[in-house]
């Protein structure tokens, strides 16, 4: 587990340099300068953009201010996807810094959920954690935790998060792994926003599954076509149970599918 902590720490401290600009048609008071921010990959847009909101509110008439939302090249950005997932899904080939457009009007009701306070994001995050634990331990670990432990998972300090997350990643040695691996494969080129199925960490013959095995079964195109490991190259796939130790967004080799382990 100590080694997993090192991997998770690297995931945790991933950042994306971003440039926020107010949508041209919404500028009414005075020209707004763009706002630059290093966004943490394992957070949510609406959680880390208070300063952005404050900055652009100066340039908008108070009566024009509705709920803030973000867009990248015409695509509204879903606040309930982690920032890293959004970037890898929509903008991984873009030139940095990532240019995001800020809106205060015309909220796209069909594409986005409303997020009126940070407690909504926290509730969404906790529901993801609970869903993952239901798959891993039949919810035994999360149900044994107290309210303050849940709060600790939500805090933005890595060591505090890790102290609690470690409990969610343990399993009895005799069981050999989790019941199922909680994962999602996000896709942009499909009607389904993501693929999510039951997947055991060990095959019926007793072999440990790897990320490669998971992708082969759930998203074969990721392995066989454009993104298959080139001949002569070496490609390591972590065992699937270790994969579940990484809660952050993971970009799989396919380029268009983003694998996120809950």
């Amino acid at each position, binding site marked *: 587990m100590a080694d997993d902590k090192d991997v998770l720490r*690297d995931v945790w401290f991933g950042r994306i340099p971003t440039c926020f600009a107010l949508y041209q048609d919404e500028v009414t008071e005075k020209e707004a300068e763009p706002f630059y921010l290093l966004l943490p990959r394992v957070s949510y847009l609406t959680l880390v953009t208070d300063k952005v909101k404050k900055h652009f509110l100066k340039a908008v008439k108070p009566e024009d201010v509705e709920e803030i939302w973000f867009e990248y090249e015409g695509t509204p950005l879903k606040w309930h996807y982690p920032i890293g997932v959004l970037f890898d899904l929509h903008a991984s080939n873009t030139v940095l810094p990532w240019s995001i457009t800020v809106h205060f009007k015309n909220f796209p009701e069909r594409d986005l959920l409303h997020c009126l306070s940070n407690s909504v994001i926290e509730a969404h995050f906790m529901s993801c954690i609970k869903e993952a634990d239901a798959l891993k331990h039949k919810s035994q670990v999360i149900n044994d935790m107290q309210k303050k432990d849940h709060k600790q998972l939500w805090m933005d300090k890595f060591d505090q998060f890790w102290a609690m997350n470690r409990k969610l990643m343990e399993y009895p040695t005799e069981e050999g792994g989790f019941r199922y691996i909680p994962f999602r494969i996000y896709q942009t080129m499909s009607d389904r926003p993501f693929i999510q199925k039951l997947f055991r960490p060990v095959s019926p013959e007793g072999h440990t599954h790897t990320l490669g095995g998971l992708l082969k079964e759930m998203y074969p195109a990721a392995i066989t076509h454009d993104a298959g490991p080139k001949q002569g190259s070496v490609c390591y796939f972590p065992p699937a149970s270790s994969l579940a130790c990484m809660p952050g967004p993971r970009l799989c080799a396919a380029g268009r599918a983003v694998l996120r382990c809950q």
Partner: protein
Amino acid sequence: MENWRCHVRAELIRRDGSQKDPYAGVFRSLFQLQDQCEIRQHIWEDVQSQSLEQDGITFVDLHRWLRESEHLSKKLSQTVSDLTCVLYFKEAEIQYWQSQVCRYRQEALSLARGSNTMRATLNQLEFTVERQAKELAALQKEHTRLREGMVEAWKEKGELLQR
């Protein structure tokens, strides 16, 4: 560390090298400049027309130093609080690892105890085998002697019948 961990970490480091690292320094400087700019703007708004000069130090300078010191002290106290928090969790982590060491020590002790018991059983079984081998040899000897006796008795019987 297993190969996949090395690979994942190397990829993450490569990703940060191309995405985060080239911008981190510039962004940090930008935030500092924005903070300073904001403070100065506040001061400017506060004392637009009332600048008094004493010993070459203007009121504006004093005000700016004060605000900057306040800002720095706020940041320092936040850092101290963060570090205290980290220390607390490190201590909790040490306790966790100590409990793990204790658990594995107990397991090692019980395994050693089991191994000793098995060794004693093995010794006992070896002793039994040795004893039974000796008994078998004695029985085989006795068996040979009895067979010879029987042959002798048959011989005597034959002679008696002839007579």
